[in-house]
């Protein structure tokens, strides 16, 4: 039996709010963060509603105390990581092997876009130093140093499953006794690059998205960051920290079907969920709630729905897609939904879909439509599936 890995802290910033409390408040009042674009400069401003963090870069600089003109990902990442660590001052980490594992698909692409746009107008006008923010590791390194950490740092990029893999990697490094404490999760800021990229695939909804609905039209993009603080149970006891929950299961698989689509029967998702249950030594019937990947695209919801049917039929646990509140935050989504899963266990909450009318014809799956607080939440299954067939499922369990 491998060591039990617990979560002692969480941090989250998304369209729903600047921290965990604001996020839960949004769910309690059934308030979606998906709104017309306010901050991103794009010609699609009035076309696609998005889940933007409700703050400009200047606001974020002020909020975090960081210098202006950093990439948006840095602000989001630092803000959420700091909240995750707020229960544990960095000075208490001395003598421990600490790691920071973040996830990103765009890095500081917003700054690279600025450079490309200005140098297009006048080759001499762009500031090439903007591109120093470009790579995915840059925000991670910046936050790592800003938090005063040294030791192990890494960035994972597996499209929309990135931060789920960051948490999984963290857990494995803890179980193998290579690290004592890991801050793991991910970040992605909304950029022109991603909005236009997803638009070329014609999977972006021009209205509020409706995941799992028969008439779903696509996804809404979002942005944000979220991190959890993970450690072995004994370390938490030694540090006198209480566990919010533990990360009991995980699995990473590849669907091996297509670069941008899942197989209709959801082979990768099915194996990821099955293996995560096995890792946690749980049966499907033990799951209290499934936080689905549920992007709202035709392909994802059908494939994921089929995989869930294969595994859970006929006794489905309550399930929903919180992306109908946050938008799809790409590399951050596994982190955001991981934090939501931890908060679900801590507060006995099951999140709803923002809207739901009719189930997909071939599926019986009906998401919750109202927040539920009527039952204890013991085990949450959180799915994160991405382009390139990257599928990761995590299981969070009450301690």
């Amino acid at each position, binding site marked *: 039996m491998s060591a039990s890995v617990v979560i002692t802290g969480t941090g989250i910033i998304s369209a729903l709010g600047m921290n965990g409390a604001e996020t839960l408040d949004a769910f309690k009042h059934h308030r979606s963060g998906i709104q017309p674009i306010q901050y991103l400069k*794009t*010609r*699609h401003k009035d076309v696609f509603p998005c889940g933007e963090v409700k703050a400009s870069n200047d606001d974020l600089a002020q909020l975090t105390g960081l210098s202006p003109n950093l990439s948006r990902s840095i602000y989001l990442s630092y803000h959420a990581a700091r909240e995750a660590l707020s229960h544990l001052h960095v000075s208490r980490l001395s003598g421990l092997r600490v790691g920071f594992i973040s996830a*990103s*698909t765009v890095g500081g692409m917003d700054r*690279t*876009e600025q450079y*490309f746009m200005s140098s*297009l107008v006048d080759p001499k006008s762009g500031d*090439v*130093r903007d*591109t*120093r923010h470009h*790579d*995915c*590791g*840059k925000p991670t*390194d910046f936050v*790592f*140093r800003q938090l005063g*950490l*040294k*030791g*192990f*740092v*890494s*960035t*994972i*990029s*597996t*499209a929309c499953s990135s931060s789920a*893999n960051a948490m999984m*990697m963290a857990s*494995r*490094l803890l179980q*193998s006794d*290579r690290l004592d404490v890991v801050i793991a999760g991910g970040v992605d800021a909304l950029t*022109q*690059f991603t909005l*236009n*990229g997803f*638009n*070329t*695939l014609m999977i972006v909804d021009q209205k509020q998205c409706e995941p799992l609905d028969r008439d779903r039209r696509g996804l809404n993009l979002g942005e944000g960051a979220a991190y959890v603080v993970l450690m072995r149970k004994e370390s938490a006891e030694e540090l006198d920290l209480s566990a919010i929950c533990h990360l009991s299961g995980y699995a*990473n*698989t*590849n*669907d*091996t079907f*297509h*670069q*941008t689509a899942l197989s209709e029967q959801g*082979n*990768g998702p099915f*194996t990821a969920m099955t293996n995560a249950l096995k890792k946690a030594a749980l049966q499907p019937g033990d799951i209290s709630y499934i936080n689905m990947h549920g992007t709202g695209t035709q392909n994802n919801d059908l494939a994921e729905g089929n995989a869930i049917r294969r595994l859970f039929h006929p006794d489905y646990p309550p399930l929903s897609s919180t992306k109908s509140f946050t938008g799809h935050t790409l590399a951050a989504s596994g982190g955001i939904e991981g934090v939501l899963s931890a908060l679900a266990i801590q507060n006995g909450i099951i999140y709803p879909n923002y809207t739901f009318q009719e189930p997909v014809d071939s599926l019986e799956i009906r998401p919750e439509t109202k927040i539920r607080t009527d039952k204890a939440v013991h085990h949450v299954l959180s799915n994160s599936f*991405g*382009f*390139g*067939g*990257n599928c990761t499922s995590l299981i969070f369990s009450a301690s």
Partner: protein
Amino acid sequence: MIRKPIYIQGAGSISAQKTWDKTFLEDKFIKHSGNRWLCQEPDYSEWIDSRAIRRMSRVLQQCNVAAQLAMKECHLECPEAIIVGTAMGCLEDTWSFLSKMVHHQEEMLSPTAFIHSTHNTMASHLALHFKSFGHNCTFVHRNISFENALTDAILLLEEGEVSKVLVGGADEVTDISFDILSQLGQIRQVESVNSVPIPTNVSGWIAGEGASFFVLGNEQTTASYARLTEVGVYSGFDIEEIKQLAGKLLATIIPGKTIILAGHNGDASEDKITDEVLSKGNGQAPIFKYKTLCGEYGTSSSFALWMAAHMLKNQIRPTNSGFKLVENSDLDTVIIYHQTSQIHHSFILVERC
């Protein structure tokens, strides 16, 4: 502290040297001119379906063939896990989509470049190519991306759920990225003519690229190259702390039986740090500056690991012109040390098996 024996069972590389057909090991080293060294490439159509090639960027083709080379050596058809490290990802497709987006003011864009621009394109392409349903991950942390990928592979093999892992490092240099790096002053401004070894004590480095892949497994076979015994990555420490950590590692050197492949990149200020850290080895082992062969790129340590594997198996050592046999077959250990920008320092230890 690798807790189970892990062997390099297959190795494939495409680099600025002729690694793909291994004439690199026999002939004189290829001397490049200029400050951007491109890969010596095979005819990819012999390896990849011609319709597929058209949709693949250079780095994707390099990954594909380097992975095929590694797998062929150990007769592996489908790896149980695929892990890739890439510092910068699929740059050609990223710049392509970004440029078009800016030029066409966010209109009339096609999805192809976007689809191939994501960092996980390489690992997922390999999963599709080899029909590998298992663990699939991509690490993108600057000059330790490949080391992170190795760490993931080591964990998998220690956990015992798989017995063979395909792991590699890949990065490409493109026109736009070379231009940006030049403008940032990172690329050497003076022309380096036929430069092995690279002249040192100037500012800036030479841009390189490449893809090197390995099959790692728990079993030692007659085909195994070497045993991977340590991957140590230290981030965020000051130079004195790094020297202490390096000192512990380098203390294991047995004189006469160890060679260090060091990541000097020719930039005077970077190399000063590299020298300082390696000085903790007290000159007990000869140092070869491997980037004089492949140029500087984030995952260049994967090229060094390919070299180390062949040095140990064939008992050869690099000189300034080519490889020579090691006297008395005395080479037991190769230590790879890679650092850039002084934030991340990595050591990879490989031993004869």
